[in-house]
């Protein structure tokens, strides 16, 4: 096999369409006779629905239907949304109906769907639907929800706790009782939402003649959406098709099945027309899943040499009002804390609390940034207390490459033990430190301080489970016109799958990626699929593309060999033809071979060979592939205003073998920017009645071009032994260690002022408060 494309920074196949306005996102699809929907949503965080009067709205010109819970199809009135990831410790699962029946549990919960001739009229009509709500007690904060006498976030609930789950390894009591030092931290972390630029959207087209339901939806995976439709609607498998066109960003929350999708389908069934719903940004702020608050009470035990003996504590997690993903998010957090360090004993209990806020599901990083934050802040504390260099404390505790594979001792959210497969963590940190000239930083800091400038440096190290199973499939097919097409259930949202998967397939046929088309996001293209999230597509779909491509190439060789009367090994595939190796110019084109493969008079396939140049592979990894990275930030803090300026940000990153370096760099840089947002800008503010206040881009602050640093990337490539390509995921690695690297750098800059930081994000105002608190402490 010639390696022509794999490993090369090839320009993306996706781009010419996107650059010329020819992208096809769900809102760009127009079906004949299509109607438009808008939702009536709860203005209160917790309330009983006393009555709904839609008569005025229904009477309006251009309004086609107003559907409440009571007008839904019977199955939707009977069934709540499915629980995607059930686990035993989730003792109090909560799932919504498609439209609220008698209780609303967060601001933004859908109560009714209005269908009209256009979106303008639909919004006019939404304002005319009168909903009589009786306010109920609100759980606006996860810790408040645990207090005795706290209101219940759902009527009739015994408790606000969704789940309690310990993660334990080693002898934690011994570790702490024998420790020379124990340090305790209470850490608060808030992460906001995904805030992809294309809001969610769906078009349902129910054909009453054929009883086919076609749903276009902006998603991260069509097959799981289809599964949810099957749970909710009694519809023939053959009659249900889910299609995801181009997607304007996902970052996790577009992976969920949402109530709006079923409501739009029900609306199409009720009206006999295709119905489009495009989420607007105000809805996006209240109805798309987010991440939110985590409170960590943790302590670390170390010996006199700063070697970690144990880490223990609790994580209190704000889950929001419903649990579609169970405890996936806090579980990932808890399993990620140990990171690249040897931690002989670990005991972390997660408590997931149901509050009256929009549900949480993973956002880029998926609970890992918080975990890394906890571990890296603890190590900073150790360094400070023991008077050691923070980098040195980490060096003393790294898992060494020769310890691979390394069993951390805890269980990941896929139910499998966390066993790191590969990686050189000490080297990863050293590369980053060297790039930023860490050794000389103390001098720089001293010089700056003498000028009254506060600069600081911070490190974040992370190990990330990527390539989550159970599988992803790819079908590679050569049509009778010679076209090579790869079909997959992995559904891209900007990650360049149509390029990177083409690179993998193209190499098997010795063609350029232009000769390979990748089709994604259509349940009619491939039988099964999971989707694109959890940095899983390169590992799962990439490996399947490799295996399927390899199988088809083998078949091509075999048929060509039969026709050309040589051995398959004598055939090489280049430039779209199967050629006999050597000087003779004997070959068959892929087009000819595709026709032969379907049978031709006078030609029989070899015994046992199935017809068609086609193969489907479902690669199923035995466990996650563990990527790792070090983020080092150098910042300057204006101690008068509290503003943080990131002077430099170096990212040392190991995602195994790299399919397309340019694409991976893009993923890493974009991920870092997300981390900058989480460290310094993004905060979803609610009032004490859980009313979301930050519901526009003026108040919820995404980082802008002038706010993010230039990222300097250094790649290691430690091949994963867990998949045939040696790849690991790259989509989240930029985000995960960056938040704490920035916060550590701020803490380092402000160390001369005695400031202690145990939270993120850090606003300028908060930094001034922390400085003032430190001053007050030093005076006292």
């Amino acid at each position, binding site marked *: 096999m010639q390696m022509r494309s794999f490993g090369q920074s090839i320009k993306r196949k996706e781009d010419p369409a996107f650059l010329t306005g020819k992208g096809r996102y769900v809102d760009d699809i127009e079906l004949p006779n299509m109607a438009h929907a808008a939702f009536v949503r709860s203005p209160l965080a917790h309330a009983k629905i006393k009555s709904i009067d839609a008569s005025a709205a229904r009477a309006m010109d251009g309004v086609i239907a107003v559907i409440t819970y009571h007008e839904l199809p019977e199955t939707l009135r009977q069934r709540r949304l499915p629980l995607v990831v059930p686990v035993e410790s989730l003792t109090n699962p909560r799932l919504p109906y498609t439209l609220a029946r008698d209780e609303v549990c967060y601001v933004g919960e859908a109560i009714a769907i209005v269908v009209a001739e256009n979106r303008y009229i639909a919004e006019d009509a939404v304002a005319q639907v009168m909903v009589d709500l009786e306010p109920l007690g609100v759980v606006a904060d996860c810790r408040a929800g645990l207090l005795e006498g706290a209101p219940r976030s759902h009527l009739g609930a015994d408790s606000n706790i969704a789940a309690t789950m310990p993660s334990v390894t080693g002898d934690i009591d011994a570790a702490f009782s024998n420790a020379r030092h124990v340090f305790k931290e209470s850490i608060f972390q808030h992460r906001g939402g995904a805030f992809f630029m294309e809001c969610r959207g769906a078009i349902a087209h129910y054909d009453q003649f054929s009883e086919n339901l076609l749903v276009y939806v902006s998603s991260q995976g069509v097959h799981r959406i289809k599964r949810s439709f099957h749970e909710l609607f009694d519809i023939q498998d053959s009659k249900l098709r889910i299609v995801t066109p181009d997607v304007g960003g996902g970052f996790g929350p577009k992976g969920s099945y949402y109530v709006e999708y079923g409501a739009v389908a029900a609306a199409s069934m009720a009206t006999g027309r295709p119905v489009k719903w495009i989420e607007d940004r105000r809805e996006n702020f209240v109805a798309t899943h987010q991440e939110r608050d985590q409170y960590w009470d943790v302590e670390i035990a170390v010996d006199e040499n700063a070697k970690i003996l144990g880490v223990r504590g609790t994580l209190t997690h704000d889950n929001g009002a419903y649990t579609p993903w169970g405890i996936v998010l806090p579980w990932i957090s808890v399993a990620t804390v140990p990171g690249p360090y040897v931690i002989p004993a670990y005991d972390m209990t997660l408590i997931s609390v149901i509050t009256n806020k929009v549900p949480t599901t993973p956002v880029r990083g998926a609970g890992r940034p918080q975990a890394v934050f906890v571990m890296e802040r603890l190590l900073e504390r150790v360094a400070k207390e023991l008077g050691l260099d923070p980098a040195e404390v980490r060096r003393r505790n790294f898992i060494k490459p020769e310890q691979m594979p390394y069993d951390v001792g805890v269980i990941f959210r896929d139910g499998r033990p966390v066993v790191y497969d590969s990686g050189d963590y000490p080297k990863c940190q050293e590369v980053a430190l060297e790039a930023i000239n860490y050794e000389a930083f103390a001098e720089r800091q001293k010089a700056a301080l003498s000028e009254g400038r506060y600069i600081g440096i911070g490190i974040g190290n992370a190990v990330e489970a990527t390539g989550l199973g159970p599988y992803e499939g790819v079908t590679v097919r050569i049509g009778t016109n010679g076209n090579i097409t790869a079909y997959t259930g992995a559904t891209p949202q900007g990650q360049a799958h149509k390029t990177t998967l083409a690179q993998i397939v193209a190499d098997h046929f010795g063609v350029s990626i232009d000769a390979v088309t990748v089709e994604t996001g259509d349940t009619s293209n491939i039988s099964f699929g999971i989707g694109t999230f959890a940095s899983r597509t390169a590992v799962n779909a990439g490996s399947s593309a490799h295996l399927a491509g390899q199988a088809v190439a083998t078949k091509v060789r075999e048929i060509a060999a039969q026709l050309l009367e040589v051995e398959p090994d004598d055939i090489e595939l280049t430039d779209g033809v199967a050629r006999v190796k050597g000087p003779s110019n004997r070959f068959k084109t892929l087009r000819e071979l595709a026709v032969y493969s379907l049978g031709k008079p006078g030609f029989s396939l070899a015994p046992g060979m199935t017809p068609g140049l086609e193969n489907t592979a479902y690669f199923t990894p035995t466990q996650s592939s563990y990527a790792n990275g070090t983020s080092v930030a150098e910042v300057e803090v204006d101690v008068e205003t509290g503003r943080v300026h990131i002077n430099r940000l170096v990212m040392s990153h190991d995602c195994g073998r790299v399919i397309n370096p340019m694409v991976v760099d893009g993923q890493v840089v974009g991920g870092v920017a997300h981390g900058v947002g989480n460290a310094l800008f993004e905060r979803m503010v609610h009032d004490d009645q859980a009313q979301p206040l930050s519901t526009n881009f003026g108040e919820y602050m995404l980082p802008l071009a002038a706010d993010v640093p230039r990222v300097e990337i250094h790649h290691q490539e430690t091949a994963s032994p867990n998949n045939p390509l040696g790849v690991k995921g790259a989509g989240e690695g930029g985000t995960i260690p960056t938040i704490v690297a920035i916060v550590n750098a701020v803490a380092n800059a402000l160390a001369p002022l005695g400031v202690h930081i145990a939270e993120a994000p850090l606003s300028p*105002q908060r930094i001034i408060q922390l400085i003032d608190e430190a001053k007050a402490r030093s005076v006292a």
Partner: protein
Amino acid sequence: MKPSPFTYHAPTTTAELTELLGTLDDVRIIAGGQSLMPMMNFRFVQPGHLIDLNTVGGLAYVDVQRDFIEIGASTRQRFLQRSQDIAKHMPIVGEALSHVGHRQTRARGTIGGSLCHFDPSAELVNMAALHDAVLTLTSVDGDRSISFGEFGLGFLTTSVQPNEFLRSVRLARWPEGHGYGFEEFAMRHGDFAICAVSCLMTLDDRGAIDRLAVAVSGVSETPVRLTEMEGRLRGTMPDAGTATDLAAAAGDIEAMSDAYITSDYRSHLARVITRRAFTKATERADQRVRA
């Protein structure tokens, strides 16, 4: 997020405009639309009638007079940014404008729209306060000119009557070579200022302050001129001590708080930013200039 229905009017003359204003109820005037359109898209504002100022001729101009510059209400922010007259005679306005939104919003946003919206942290509102603006309001009954103090009543509130529109604003000129400094603190480039401070200064032969104007905005519901200090500091040398006194006065302004920013932090920033604006103005003040 689509606007609710309204009746649209596109007058071409001020006479037509005042006629409409005099006869219609439930009216909003749309100028650049960069604040009004978002509020309409969110349906926070649902006017029955929308009157477009953009079709009215003769309202976009910069006219430099001896004592003031008159700016037509429909003059776009970007036009002001590119104006050589503004750059030459009122350089601080150019500095302030670079903080107003983004290039796409400055392409539409107008000075009159910004003033009538009267966001307390808006840079152009600050400029009007700083330059002792005189605003001309027009109705079917004719023109009336009012001071900035009479114009701005409070948070998003002006004294423009329902039958009036803002025709133009006059900003008082300062002598060539005056010192100026505009500083603001916003979370990100282009965001509304949490605190913005502008400072104009002339020095006498000794280098002492001859004339001073300082406007602090974002801190309270309208921009605040530090009038008392402006008078008291006349004749003093613009040094660190002066800056500290001025900063203290800014810090004494009663500060707003909201879900994001405390009054303490606003006051803190008012002190810091005032000192910085004053220092910058001092550095730029040409000592040969007499008032």
